[in-house]
């Protein structure tokens, strides 16, 4: 299957395997198309997870990762793409409804926006919180002191 993709799309896709698990690194511009094909033609009908990884030293700072599963093929695949800080990415909610909360969590934790998401707002942290905690430059003891003081009426949560 991946070989077929490689034949059609050429250099934009790099199929890889680690410890027996297949994943492919896809160019950002091809993401919506590839995800759509995986869903419709290759029967990856279950979007297991969407997440991101932050690499502050790279030019393209973020990896966005989709974990997909196909019930009919009993097969799992990961799709990975790299994006710049501040760059947005097309939402996959039209492809899998399950992506809704998963994308909101990525936005909440990394500040990556998904274009066309029906309700792009924070999910775990309160509205109005400043900062994205899972970025590497966000300290483990760091918090939004202003928010804490206004909303909780205490000096600091630490």
């Amino acid at each position, binding site marked *: 299957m991946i070989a077929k993709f490689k034949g059609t799309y050429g250099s934009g896709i790099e199929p890889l395997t*680690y*410890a027996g*698990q297949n*994943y492919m690194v896809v160019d950002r511009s091809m993401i919506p198309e590839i995800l759509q094909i995986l869903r419709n033609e290759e029967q990856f*009908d*279950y*979007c*297991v*997870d969407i*997440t991101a*990884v*932050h690499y502050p030293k790279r030019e393209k700072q973020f990896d966005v*990762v989709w*974990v997909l599963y196909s*019930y009919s093929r*009993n097969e*799992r695949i*990961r799709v990975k793409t790299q994006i710049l800080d501040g760059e947005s990415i097309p939402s996959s909610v039209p492809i*899998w*409804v*399950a992506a*809704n*909360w*998963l994308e909101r969590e990525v936005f909440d*934790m990394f500040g990556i926006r998904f274009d066309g998401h029906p309700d792009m707002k*924070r*999910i*775990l*942290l*309160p509205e109005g919180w400043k900062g994205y*905690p*899972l970025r590497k430059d*966000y300290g*483990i003891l760091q918090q939004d002191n202003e928010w804490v003081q206004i909303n909780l009426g205490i000096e600091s949560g630490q």
Partner: protein
Amino acid sequence: MTDSNTLSHLDLETPEKPFLDANELVINMGPQHPATHGVLRVILRLDGEKVLGLECVIGYLHRGVEKIGEHRTYTMFNPYVDRMDYVAAVSNGLGYCETVEKLLHVEAPPRAQYVRVILTELNRLASHQLWLGTHALDIGAITPLFYTFRDREEILKIYEKYCGARLTTHAFRIGGLQYETYNGFEREVKNFLSFFRPKIDEYEELLTTNRIWVERTKNVGIISAKDCIALGVTGPVLRASGVKWDLRKAQPYANYKNFDFDIPTCQNGDTYDRYLVRMAEMRQSVRIIEQAVEGLPEGPVMAKVPKVMKPPAGEIYHSIEAPKGELGYFIVSDGSTQPYRVRVRPPSFVNLQALDLMCRGQLVADVIAVIGTLDIVLGEVDR
């Protein structure tokens, strides 16, 4: 005491507008609500008593588990995973340990794998018992709570004897088990099984044909197989909608492929079917534990694992069938002693997304039933 002034507000005057109007009503439920199983806040949009839609507000229990993981070594992070789904701590530990083992390219020895299966399936029983007790209590049946908690105690006693903890057990280590089983472990597990098997019938006697129970659960919170797949819903909820899918069979981990068991399914996808599926699952778990205790091999319980763990750079997604559904771990290693990124894919978080769809058109009282039947644990939703 009958002061006319203080009672004046009770005077029945002609209302300014009709008592029953067609306006939508928005009400708030939770986060401090006994039936939301923790701190779930639900904003309901109602037409009379009918639910038009709802929105979940979560995050009250967010502790930043994934961030903590990046600042702890692989071994140090192990106890933290117990605190996510705290009623199924052993399952969380199994998923985490297996993922790190995959990164390290080691495998737990056979005896460790058998003990893991026994403890994890006991945990599934404990989790389902807690679900049954609280779910029935929410709907108004108080008795099952006492029955299930009485029997769950026996499982917790086995845990306590094995590793010293009852709830957040930290039973497994990366590479196998810290402790050999205690003297009489097999006998006690067997005793528990023969004690527990008739108890499942007892629970079913209380509920399965109970008219109030059936009225409150049949055709409540229906979700189709197609919607389950689109929403990423897994676990008993998916199986009650007719999809015969269980990670223990589909992509066997630990040593589940050595055991003979069935995947119970139902067709209607309503609250009653989800109840039936979980009851049948308990019987299957008993079957698995029975086989595992019978076949428990001798041998070491710990593989050769370095004291300082530095998995080679790479990334792994591994998932297990937790009592609530697919529990996945995505760990990125950069070759150091700490994970570069730990992502937990919690079943409760994804399953909770279906609440809106399942409650539409139902009554307010049914929302309680649907929250119960989804079997969410907020510690896992919020992490």
